[in-house]
């Protein structure tokens, strides 16, 4: 009764946007850029996808536009953190703030409404076997990202850049170029995540509708050690904990307990995995 297929479906639905954004975060992390602005990039994707789908009638153009818009937005981080050497954490926080303001502002100017834009004739993504095509894409993206990082020339160079940028530079590999690449890709992925959320999970736009999913993606990046498979497992764990939490509410557990459940489960998983192998220091947590 409890571990039924509905639970898994529910977990997988919750998982998709988080997974896409987290993959983007993982790429940045591997390139040595701590991307804490996933939430904001995703929100830009949400808005753009809804607006484009509404005006063109095509959810696919919405998806495309979301990817492009979020990628363009990610340039703020790229220019600020890579070219100008600003603090990526501050930039990310500011980008999240900016995205909330900007999308709310656009919602008002473009649609003339506040809060929520919702219309029965807004075209969402079709479901195939209960999932949107973007969900399948996200699973494929895990495999592609894993292959890219471990086997592809670009991935090898990216990993090198993230680990020792000056060493890469002496070999004629421009760290900035790869970091731009990773950040732009994370923008694309976050845009897709936003489109999935706004045209897949639901079909509407609400101010701040990402509601912390970008942060969960950041946690998934850390928990999954910025490896695509690890990120997948972390996001899945989170999705399952959340879906199970929903069900536990039905059994009378207070809402606060089910709210906290995914985080507690994640922390527990972290204890178990880090107890053994200690992580070598990467960019995460390094500020100055």
């Amino acid at each position, binding site marked *: 009764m409890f571990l039924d297929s509905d639970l898994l479906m529910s977990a997988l639905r919750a998982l998709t946007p988080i997974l896409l954004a987290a993959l983007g975060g993982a790429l940045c992390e591997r390139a040595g850029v701590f991307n804490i602005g996933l939430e904001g990039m995703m929100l830009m994707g949400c808005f753009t996808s809804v607006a484009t789908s509404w005006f063109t009638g095509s959810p696919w153009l919405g998806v495309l536009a979301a990817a492009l818009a979020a990628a363009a937005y990610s340039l703020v981080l790229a220019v600020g953190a890579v070219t100008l050497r600003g603090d990526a954490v501050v930039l990310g926080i500011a980008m999240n703030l900016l995205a909330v303001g900007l999308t709310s502002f656009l919602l008002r100017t473009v649609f003339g409404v506040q809060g929520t834009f919702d219309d029965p004739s807004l075209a969402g993504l079709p479901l195939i076997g209960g999932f949107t095509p973007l969900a399948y894409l996200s699973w494929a993206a895990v495999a592609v990202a894993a292959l890219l990082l471990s086997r592809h020339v670009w991935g090898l160079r990216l990993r090198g850049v993230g680990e020792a940028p000056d060493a890469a530079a*002496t070999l004629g590999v421009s760290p900035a170029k790869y970091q731009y690449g990773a950040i732009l890709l994370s923008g694309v992925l976050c845009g897709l995540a936003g489109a999935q959320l706004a045209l897949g999970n639901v079909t509407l736009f609400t101010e701040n509708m990402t509601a912390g999913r970008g942060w969960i993606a950041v946690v998934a990046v850390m928990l999954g050690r910025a490896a695509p498979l690890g990120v997948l497992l972390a996001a899945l764990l989170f999705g399952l904990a959340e879906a199970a939490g929903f069900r536990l509410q039905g059994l009378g557990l207070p809402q606060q307990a089910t709210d906290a459940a995914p985080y507690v489960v994640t922390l527990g998983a972290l204890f178990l995995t880090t107890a053994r192998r200690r992580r070598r220091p990467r960019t995460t947590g390094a500020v100055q």
Partner: protein
Amino acid sequence: MTPPPPENFAVELRGITKRFPGTLANDAVDLTVRHGEIHALMGENGAGKSTLMSVLYGMERADAGSIRIDGREVRFTSPSDAMAAGLGMVHQSFKLFDSLTVAENVVYAAEPRRFGLVDRAAARRRVRELADEHGLAVDPEARVGDLPVGLRQRVEILKLLHRGARTLILDEPTAVLTPAEADSLFGVLKSLTARGRTVVLVTHKLREVLEGSDRVTVLRDGRVAARLVTSDTTADEIAAAMTGRAVELDRVHAPGTPGEAVLRVTGFSTDSVHDVDLSVHAGEIVGVAGVAGNGQSKLVEALAGLRPVAAGRVTLLGADITHASATERRLKGLAYVPEDRHAVGTAPAASVADNLAMGHHRTTLSTRGLLPPAAVRAHARRLVERFGIKAATTEVPASALSGGNLQKLLIGRELAHEAPLLLVEQPTRGVDIGAIQNIHDQLIAYRDAGHAVLLVSAELSEIRGLADRVLVLYEGRVAASYAKEEADERTLGLAMAGAPAEATHEHEPPDTSPRT
């Protein structure tokens, strides 16, 4: 000077001038390197060697001058240009990716590919081929982070060979190598030149230059001070060219007059160090020799309280400090010069004054926890003066000091504790001859003031010049122990290589009766 013969040089620098704000780092420098030779570039710290090599390698743009490679004039705007022209450089601090494998490091940015993916099998094959060809054995699958320094350097060289470098530039390649590793490196370099490759070697070590190079160019204050053919010159001549004065090389200092035991270590074990007994007396320098990786660093780190002790007992001036914290040890009278001055011994981003305050901030500089900035500054000015540290002001970051000056800062700071026991690791690594002499004199004066010194060095001449007694560590155990006069280079070398010891008897001076 006669104009050079119309010959094709592997590298030909003409009139290179490079100015930094406030410094003329290279002043119309000419450097010609012939095909197939090992060419040494020497000079004191700050003489302009690294700058010249940076210009050659496209990392810095010269203000004036020209570069020819194999007779063709070139203009590099980046290292990639230099690489394309057949140059390759091994930087003093290695530029490797610790988490990647040897093969990945070697092929990085010049990967063999299949369907756009890195062809890992081909990469491994390539590494093996190159390794076999040049005697650079290393496991292509090993993670570079797990390799000892000597092997990392091989990876650096393999990297260049993979890229088809015909001229290899090595900046102070032996600074971090043990004598054995250095010898093996020179073997490799010789074999490379024998196959037509050219080597430019930046170094401070006279002996290596004399034994390993064909010609020498000496820089002083950014200008060429001498061009010498190695077979026609002597150490004294090179040293004089570098410093502009006569230097006494390889001095063996007079023995000290040991007093009471300051440090006593019995049955001591820690991570890969086993059952070590040793003692250091007041007025005595005990040298610890050993090939890197045989436990010297771990021993010293454990003695300094940075590593837990597995077994044994350590006393300092009679007090048991086996399990004391690093701070307690310092308060009880221990000072420590670590081996890595950038990563451990200093905070490069902090000011010279702040770097000099470390360790003193809890003792002489503070009263009841307060640390007045004025006291920190005054302390810094005193030490800068006393140890001749060259720094614009005491407020500039330590990263602006040259290697030699940074080392002086570190040693000065630790000597200033006047601690009864000083632990020193590799005190003159990467430091020029002038500075070496200065540092050696300081250590001897410290000993003669009645302090105990435990000296770890990979430099046998340093051990022989300074130490009153010598221990050799082999695989974490004390393999042999020699009195000053017994410790000749051959004997030490054999013991370090693990040969059964011949002269291992107790040389420890009696506790109370100082020798005269």
